């Protein structure tokens, strides 16, 4: 049983870390504000909760587990609204999504 928990927790930690790294690479490589926000949201919405799940599986159920659950819930709740606020601010600042900007170029890239 504990071996199973260890394997599951290892998988969760690994998956969470990979998602976070992917989010980071996306933040760096993707063009435009909105694409980057999308990549960054990967971290908070699934990457961090998976890492926290991996940590939770490592320990006995206790007050600390409850605290980790609370942290995961809090992060999952605040991330979408933070992204929302960020994208509103970007729109107000004059950024436009790439799809709007390059309406003509999109047809070209889908043919490639």
């Amino acid at each position: 049983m504990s071996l199973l928990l260890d394997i599951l927790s290892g998988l969760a930690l690994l998956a969470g870390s990979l998602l976070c790294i992917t989010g980071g690479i996306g933040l760096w490589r993707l063009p435009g504000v909105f694409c980057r926000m999308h990549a960054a949201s990967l971290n908070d919405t699934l990457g961090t909760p998976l890492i926290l799940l991996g940590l939770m599986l490592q320990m006995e159920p206790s007050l600390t587990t409850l605290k980790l659950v609370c942290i995961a819930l809090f992060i999952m709740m605040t991330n979408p609204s933070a992204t929302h606020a960020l994208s509103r601010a970007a729109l107000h600042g004059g950024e436009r999504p790439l799809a709007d900007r390059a309406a003509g170029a999109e047809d070209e890239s889908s043919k490639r």
Partner: protein
Amino acid sequence: MLLALLLAVAFAAVRMRDLFSVVMLFSIYSLLTAALFMDLDAVDVAFTEAAVGAGVSTILMLASLRLVGRSEQARRRNPLLALSVVAVTGAALIYGLSDAPLLGDPNAPAQQHVAPYYIQNAMADTGVPNLVTAVLASYRGFDTFGETLVVFTAGLAVMLLLGSGRARDNQQYGSEDDRNIQRLVVRALIPWILVFALYVQFHGDFGAGGGFQAGVIFASAFVLFDLVHGHRVTAQVIPAHWLPRLGALGALIYGGVGLCSLFVGQPFLDYAALAQDPIAGQHLGILLVELGVGLTVFSVITAIYYAFSTREQLR
């Protein structure tokens, strides 16, 4: 690894000229420092650094960037003189530190004199497991009193310089629907933030926490409320003219505890005089004192935020 990241962030912050990015880098720097503190077993300090450095400090700097402008002019002066001064000072410091005790050495002079006394006797003297709270609130309570007064004075200074703000709304943009989304999420979160702040306040004896962290978290809940609902509504919840009085009340509670000990005939801030049983007196004293600290820190940070956010931009 953390140290390498810190160095990278610091150098990036030095080189960049867009102040907004520099403030963000400084926030990352504070968060990395908090992680480093966790690695160095300093849990209370990490908590405070994360709350204060990565939270409040960033908000204040962004608020002042709104008023001051976000880019920096290029320097036309030759940086060679500054670089050489910095290099000489750095070399002197490294030379001076060459016989410093190695990291983690249990026989270092810092671990020898007062610290073992505190570690061994704090439980017996104060009944509080969190050694940092025991030292902060009881053994070195007088220093913490001074610190509370410094925080209060800083709040007064900011209020004198920038005023406490008129109850008008800050600039809002976007549709009402958008704002309702944020208000929904924020309204769900704020009660939990306040409960957590109270938990940190009263649990500080047993785990990481205490008055400072609790005051900062409590204030950040109100800052969040202000960001989303606008200043007019927030000023109805916490009017600006309450805040200096609350801050003074916090400092008064702290000093009052000390004076109570004086009235009984014991030294100033000697908590053992507050109750029949010295340990109960210590608990009561630490509780009241942390409450005073939390109240002052909360009111000062909220007042400073009010002052910055309601200051009109110069046109």
